[in-house]
């Protein structure tokens, strides 16, 4: 009996763990007030505070947002429209159902005027739906899906730092131009991976390259040896890997240990400086990827990174800088509008051209609320090039905003 | 009482232990399966527990062995109360467990099955040579997995195993079940032989005829109670009545 029971128990555990549940919730009524609703402006940071994306954004993004608040107050002093500003944060655990609930709580209970960050595409789309229903702002920094500014765009949602199209067009095209014509793409078989593969294939082909193989892998996945063998079978110039987090690390280590590394270049779809920092540059020898921002690019970036480091002891990722920029520009829009009423703030943001610490040649496109800006193809430095702890990336090429981003999607109807 | 003590053999050098069960009750969850059972096995005595299926015979053996722990009452062995002591302590004190499924290990060879249990009394323990001499088939098949033996051979192995430990009291649970008459006969011989060595046996048996050929005394168990205690003579004279009573 005992053994049968235990067997059943284990079988249940196995199957239970394979089922991922997700569910959505409804919206609620909107609220509006006088000049500043409820007497204060509340910025809500909703992101991964405990899981895989904690280090690349997480609690340190709250520090970045608070820096923006301080800078705003210092800039306007007594003339500030928003006198009382509060920053709240919550953990969405990268799950769309939790993101949905937390977003409702932030808008309703915490009286948040805006929600920021929200990595993980499915979670971001859930929050966008809430923003639309509540008529409150949402600026996404952490998620990559183009749907936020495509079919599921709305008046109150903005996409600030990057998307899958831009990741692909940056590194994809630049790699083809530098001689990497034939590609194999290895991607995790879920929404993000499929999206990235579509974007990368299109970018590579636009630039005159060819994607010979697209290899789907399970997600999550520990072992890539055979996938790497398969990807190398067509003798590509470049292998593109679209996995993220722990899976990316698994792939990179096993790629380096495979003989393939000596003959084939590696292009990474989405990578953060925190990934390079935690593993060390040796693991990434010459790997290229698209970065939305790099802290040591110029003096302006570096000055901000120094302030950030003084508070957090680490150098900022592009997500940290993006959260700062989004919060700052939101507050500037409140200042210009003289109110935190959503419709007025949106009006201020739409079409705004921005050059700040984060955005270069930036523009908040009115048509789809995609915030386009110059982005960078970067290469991981070799060990002897590294001069200080976080000095890990070398900018190979700056890709102008209009090349980096897709034109506004006809699917987006505000 | 019989005159068993006089039948000691050269092998019987160990202490002359008595098993005494007093006021033993046992439960499975809420269900009481034994009520206030008293019984006694003298050194070198063969005593059977007779009763229908579900009368509580196996539970009684398991309680004596310390395997069934939801009990009240006392089990004493050689004058000392076994209390809550663990099955392995009881085994090392001289109780030899031969379960109704024979308990042969499939992952152990025949020889390993024999040598697995510790020798608990050097004076009483059979040597491996003695075992193989008595049961040549075990020697022949010593390197086979234990469960590759026939049912009868497994029964021999289970008995030989506790004899090799030097057990002073064998708790035999239905040794004749499912075996051919010729093998049952052989088991009867073995029981008489170990009795001759001063080893006691508490035997659970439904085969009344077989029981009467080996036992000194009998306890009749019904619904968890001892309803009668008989010596073998009166047991034999009442065989028909008993068979009827047992529904056999």
């Amino acid at each position: 009996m005992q053994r049968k029971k235990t067997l059943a128990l284990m079988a249940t555990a196995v199957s239970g763990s394979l089922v991922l549940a997700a569910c959505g919730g409804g919206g609620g009524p909107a609220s509006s007030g006088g000049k500043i609703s409820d007497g204060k402006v509340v910025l809500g940071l909703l992101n991964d505070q405990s899981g895989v994306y904690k280090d690349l954004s997480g609690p340190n993004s709250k520090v970045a947002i608070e820096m923006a608040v301080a800078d705003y107050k210092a800039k306007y002093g007594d003339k500030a429209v928003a006198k009382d500003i509060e920053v709240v944060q919550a953990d969405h655990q990268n799950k769309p159902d939790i993101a949905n609930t937390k977003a409702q709580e932030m808008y309703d209970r915490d009286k948040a005027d805006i929600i920021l960050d929200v990595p993980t595409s499915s979670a971001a789309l859930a929050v966008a739906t809430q923003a639309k229903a509540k008529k409150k702002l949402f600026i996404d920094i952490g998620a990559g899906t183009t749907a936020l500014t495509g079919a599921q765009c709305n008046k109150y949602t903005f996409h600030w730092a990057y998307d899958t199209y831009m990741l692909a067009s940056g590194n994809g095209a630049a790699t083809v131009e530098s001689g990497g014509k034939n590609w194999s793409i290895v991607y995790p078989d879920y929404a993000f991976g499929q999206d990235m593969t579509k974007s990368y294939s299109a970018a590579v082909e636009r630039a005159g390259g060819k994607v010979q193989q697209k290899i789907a892998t399970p997600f999550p996945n520990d072992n890539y040896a055979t996938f790497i063998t398969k990807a190398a079978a067509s003798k590509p110039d470049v292998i593109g890997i679209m996995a993220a987090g722990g899976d990316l690390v698994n792939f990179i280590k096993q790629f380096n240990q495979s003989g393939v590394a000596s003959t084939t270049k590696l292009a990474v779809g989405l990578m953060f400086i925190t990934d390079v920092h935690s593993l060390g540059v040796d693991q990434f020898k010459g790997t290229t990827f698209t970065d939305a921002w790099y802290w040591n690019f110029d003096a302006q970036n570096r000055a901000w990174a120094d302030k950030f480091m003084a508070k957090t002891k680490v150098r900022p990722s592009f997500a940290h800088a993006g959260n700062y920029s989004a919060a700052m520009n939101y507050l500037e829009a409140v200042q210009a509008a003289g109110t935190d009423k959503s419709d007025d703030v949106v009006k201020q943001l739409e079409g705004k051209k921005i050059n700040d610490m984060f955005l270069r040649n930036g523009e908040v496109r009115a048509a789809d609320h995609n915030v386009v800006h110059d982005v960078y193809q970067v290469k991981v430095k070799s060990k002897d090039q590294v001069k200080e702890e976080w000095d890990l990336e070398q900018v190979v090429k700056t890709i102008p905003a209009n090349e980096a981003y897709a034109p506004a999607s006809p699917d987006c109807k505000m | 009482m019989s005159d068993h003590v006089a039948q000691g053999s050269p092998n019987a050098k160990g202490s002359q232990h008595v098993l005494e069960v007093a006021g033993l009750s046992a439960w499975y969850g809420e269900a009481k399966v034994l009520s206030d059972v008293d019984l006694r096995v003298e050194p070198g005595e063969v005593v059977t527990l007779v009763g229908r299926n579900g009368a509580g015979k196996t539970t009684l053996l398991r309680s004596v062995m310390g395997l069934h722990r939801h009990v009240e009452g006392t089990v004493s062995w050689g004058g000392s109360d076994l209390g809550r002591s663990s099955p392995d302590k009881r085994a090392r004190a001289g109780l030899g467990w031969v379960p109704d499924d024979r308990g042969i290990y499939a992952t152990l060879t025949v020889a390993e099955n024999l040598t697995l249990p510790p020798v608990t009394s050097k004076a009483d323990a059979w040597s491996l040579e003695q075992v193989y001499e008595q049961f040549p088939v075990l020697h022949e098949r010593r390197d086979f997995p234990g469960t590759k033996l026939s049912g009868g051979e497994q029964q021999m192995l289970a008995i030989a195993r506790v004899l090799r430990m030097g057990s002073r009291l064998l708790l035999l649970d239905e040794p004749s079940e499912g075996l051919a008459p010729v093998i049952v006969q052989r088991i009867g011989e073995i029981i008489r032989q170990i009795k001759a060595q001063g080893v006691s046996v508490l035997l659970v048996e439904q085969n009344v005829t077989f029981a009467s050929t080996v036992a000194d005394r009998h306890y009749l168990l019904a619904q968890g109670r001892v309803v009668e205690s008989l010596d073998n003579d009166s047991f034999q004279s009442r065989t028909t009545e008993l068979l009827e009573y047992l529904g056999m």
Partner: protein
Amino acid sequence: MTAFIQYTLQGLALGGFYALAALGLAVIFGVLGVVNFSHGACYMLGAVGAAVLLDATGLGFWAALPIVTVAMFVFGVLMERLLVRWLLRLDPLYNFLLTFGITLFLVDLVKRRYGVSSLAYELPAGLKGRVDIGSVSLSSYQIFVAAFSVVLCLAVWVLLTRTRIGMIVRAATEDAERSRALGINVGRWVTPVFGFGIALAGLAGVLRAPTGSVNADMGSFFIIILFAVVVIGGLGSILGAVVAGFLVGLVEAYGQGYAGSFSQVLIFVLMAVVILVRPSGLFGREEAAS
């Protein structure tokens, strides 16, 4: 054909690793009847332990193998003495839940202390090369892990089949109650066996560190694969765990070669088929009729 040979070798290399990791799970289940859900977390602790050892003392892979393994043995002994032991007499569900709770605790503890990003860990210097035979190619490290696993599995096999301790463990694995009734103090073996199983999980973690991500979550999916391995092999069967480990490694490699993102699904399909055809697993014993 070359591809097939390549996949086979990769599968065997992976299988050796699975076998080693599943062995500890099987031994613990056999002797204690405990389904140790924390096996994945202990595997994670082994890998994180190796990375922390490197970071704190500069001691690399070769030192980590014995040091972390012994440390995990001690950890296992403490876990059994302080926690698992008290629930052994109850329904196995209780220890399953206990070890599940221990998993959550360990994972969060590591997250709190070391964050969520992967910790740096590199190949030992001597194992950075590759071995090429014709167009078939394996990394030295893959070969090392496979050979090491096979040697260790064999050593465990010898220990189990050729020593008295092994005989007692086998007997206790097959039927702990019966072994007690035959005078064996099974309880005395429970603690070291548990420690041994946990040590094997930690050792697997050290072996994984140079070739995979080292972070708090690395064991969370791995344990599911291991469950599949021991279910396929037969609960509590040591030989079954080893054979099923290799089988699952091969299935995963062929799956990656020929079935893409279904490579993991195939493992669970195999598990389902085994459960349907032989509910007790390939090497499991059939249920006693009682």
